């Protein structure tokens, strides 16, 4: 397989973009991505595109992407893999290029969550993710899916709600300096612990906001990378893991086996270990999920995640900063865009251009978990200095 590089990356701010439709957000993200290509991009160079979008807004996604970006003559594939959509779109494009089929491909992720009335959003989205007869009528709101895991995790591990609050404080703080983040304000542990309960054990500050947004990456083969930049970021590994969909079929709910499988694949492909990772964007749709993911990704031993946040290891300035962008928690979470935007952040980190720069970052990792907890995608990237 040929090596594949990221040579451009861009994204819209994540926000409640009531005034912007999907047809506005896609060109915005693409244009920023194109502008980041050091030696410039001719749109005609793009040979194929992969578009991650969970929902269907204003038309079928592949067509909307081709039409909106004036790319009617190339194949466009829509990727939908729950909240792992973004990193799975990257994975599919990588194989398209590594195989030799294409030299230049575009990866875009986007979603418009705030497009329908907030009173309808829950049942609409639950309809896509739950068994209609067995789970749907129970009122299994999105936070409840993850809270079922985290409640058991808190029961078995030494982690507490204070540790979840520390994750919220960290990611909020990281977001303050990120102009693309949705929630750019600091909070305290006390504020997090005193916040209204959403779904016990999650308070308001344990939860990601609802967001709209888009992100884009330009992927090229090693054969043509130098036409676009002298500072490519290499995709060293990709992985995708699945798990049982219904919660009652998951035997150990203190871990996400999908993440374990995806991380093993991606790191295995890269020939790296978790300890090689310098910076990571981890799927923190809920704070407790970041803790569990430290363990599933191999950053902490089993039930050792709380020690990492206690010691500040995963804050910027620590030895393994996690979610320097603010994460889903504070940067925002338009599901299809989330994984792609994680790679945008890692791209900037590895090129030393991030808003919240991690010193000397060389290897970065991006991670999604979704479905709600039955699919994970992991991407491992390496900076140009390597």
């Amino acid at each position: 397989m040929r090596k594949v590089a990221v040579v451009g990356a861009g994204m819209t701010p994540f926000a409640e973009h009531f005034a912007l439709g999907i047809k506005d957000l896609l060109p915005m993200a693409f244009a920023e991505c194109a502008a980041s290509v050091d030696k410039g991009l001719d749109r005609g160079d793009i040979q194929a595109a992969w578009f991650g979008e969970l929902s269907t807004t204003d038309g079928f996604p592949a067509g909307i992407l081709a039409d909106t970006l004036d790319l009617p003559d190339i194949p466009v594939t829509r990727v939908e893999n729950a909240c792992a959509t973004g990193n799975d779109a990257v994975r599919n494009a990588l194989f398209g290029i590594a195989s030799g089929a294409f030299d230049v491909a575009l990866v875009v992720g986007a979603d418009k969550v705030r497009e329908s009335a907030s009173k309808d959003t829950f049942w609409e989205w639950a309809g896509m993710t739950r068994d209609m007869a067995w789970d749907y009528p129970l009122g299994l709101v999105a936070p409840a899916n993850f809270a079922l895991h985290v409640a058991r995790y808190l029961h078995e591990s030494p982690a507490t709600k204070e540790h979840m609050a520390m994750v919220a404080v960290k990611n909020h703080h990281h977001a303050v300096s990120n102009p693309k983040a949705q929630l750019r304000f600091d909070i305290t542990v006390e504020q997090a612990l005193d916040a209204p309960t959403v779904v016990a054990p999650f308070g308001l500050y344990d939860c990601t906001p609802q967001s709209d947004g888009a992100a884009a990456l330009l992927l090229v083969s090693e054969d043509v990378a130098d036409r676009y930049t002298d500072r490519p970021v290499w995709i060293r590994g990709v992985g995708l893991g699945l798990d049982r969909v219904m919660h009652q079929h998951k035997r150990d709910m203190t871990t996400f086996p999908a993440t374990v499988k995806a991380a093993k694949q991606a790191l295995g492909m890269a020939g790296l270990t978790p300890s090689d990772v310098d910076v990571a964007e981890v799927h923190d749709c809920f704070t407790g999920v970041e803790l569990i993911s430290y363990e599933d990704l191999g950053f902490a031993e089993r039930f050792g995640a709380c020690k990492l946040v206690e010691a500040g290891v995963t804050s910027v300035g620590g030895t393994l900063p996690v979610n320097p962008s603010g994460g889903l928690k504070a940067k925002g979470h338009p599901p299809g865009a989330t994984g792609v935007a994680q790679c945008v952040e890692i791209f900037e980190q590895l090129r030393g251009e991030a808003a919240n720069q991690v010193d000397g970052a060389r290897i970065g990792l991006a991670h999604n978990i979704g479905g709600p907890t039955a699919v994970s995608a992991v991407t491992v990237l390496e900076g140009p200095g390597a």
Partner: protein
Amino acid sequence: MTQVSSVGTYLPCWGSALRRQAGDDEDALTLAVEAGRAALSDSGVAERVIVVSRELPLLEGGNAAVLLAGLGLDPELEVTERLGGAPAALDALSSARPRTLVIGTDLERAGAAAALTGDEGLSLRATARLARSLPVRTRDASGAVHDYGDPRLLRERGLLASVTAAAVEKPVAIAGTDRKQAGSLCPGTAPDLPTTGASAPLFALAALAETGTTGTLLAVEQATLTGVLVEAGQARVHRRELPARPLPKGKYTPGAEIPISLAAYDRAFEPKLRWEAARHPDREELDFPPRYRVGQDGSLSTDYTLVPLPRTGTVYTGVTVHVPVPGLKTPYSLVIVELDEVGVRALVKVTGTEPGTVDIGDRGRMVLRRVAVRSGVPDYGYAFEPEEA
């Protein structure tokens, strides 16, 4: 002459001792199932079911299937849905053939009771029946209620005039009226009854059976009356009557109508209401919910049998939803229950306790409840009722 072999009663845990209230996840059918299961609990055999109520939820069909599934009875059994109050239930019982399960179920003073007839047991014989009209309270097809508002008229020209006209001998119990009137008509013997509708005479029968009291049992509804003579014999009584406590307040959030797929409802109905899992040939583990499987060699397995699941288990994990959810009342609790000894878990709602009070490791049982109402369709399934602390 009818012989009653067992009587089962059910009172929801909500409301006050004097006036029980159905939970938000209960309706006349789920109450009836609780009482019916209690009556059948010592391996009683029912060959037909008569359910008497003025509150049946599905007026255009479907009650019978829910009832039989909830009771664990054969879907081929005859189910009679009888519209009526206390006299209708007593009529149904006094004319029932052996192995008939007669259930009375009420929502206003909530409760249900069921009597199973057999070849031996507590004997009862119809002695009086009188239909008179004094509609002091009316309800039309749309549910609109009108109350004439004259309790003394109801007492004098309803209850007392009918008792006199029917020339019944001094009753030992009266069902269908309030405690005060019952007490004045049968001093010293009138049992305190928690309900006044179709279930009331069956609650009365349970009390008479427990105390070994014989004599006339009257069931009244406005000016209509039925009397039976309760004679010798034994009926086993199984009461599922939890202590009463106030219904948790919660907050209903109006908004979206929750959609339903009736195709999905139909596919899930049997295992969902009968609490059954699939056993495929040559597969160790049970599949819950049931589904087709494929073997290692890719062969399709569709030929599964449904096997009953245990109705007791332990909470593996659980959460309580506080955030307002359009169309639902919050807070509510969801748990994953590890069912006893079968390696099967179920994700279900919690019932019978205040939200947020169930912890990991708690024990309880699975009970049929109306899990949701979706686009006008009552969606029945099982909920976890924790053991009393």
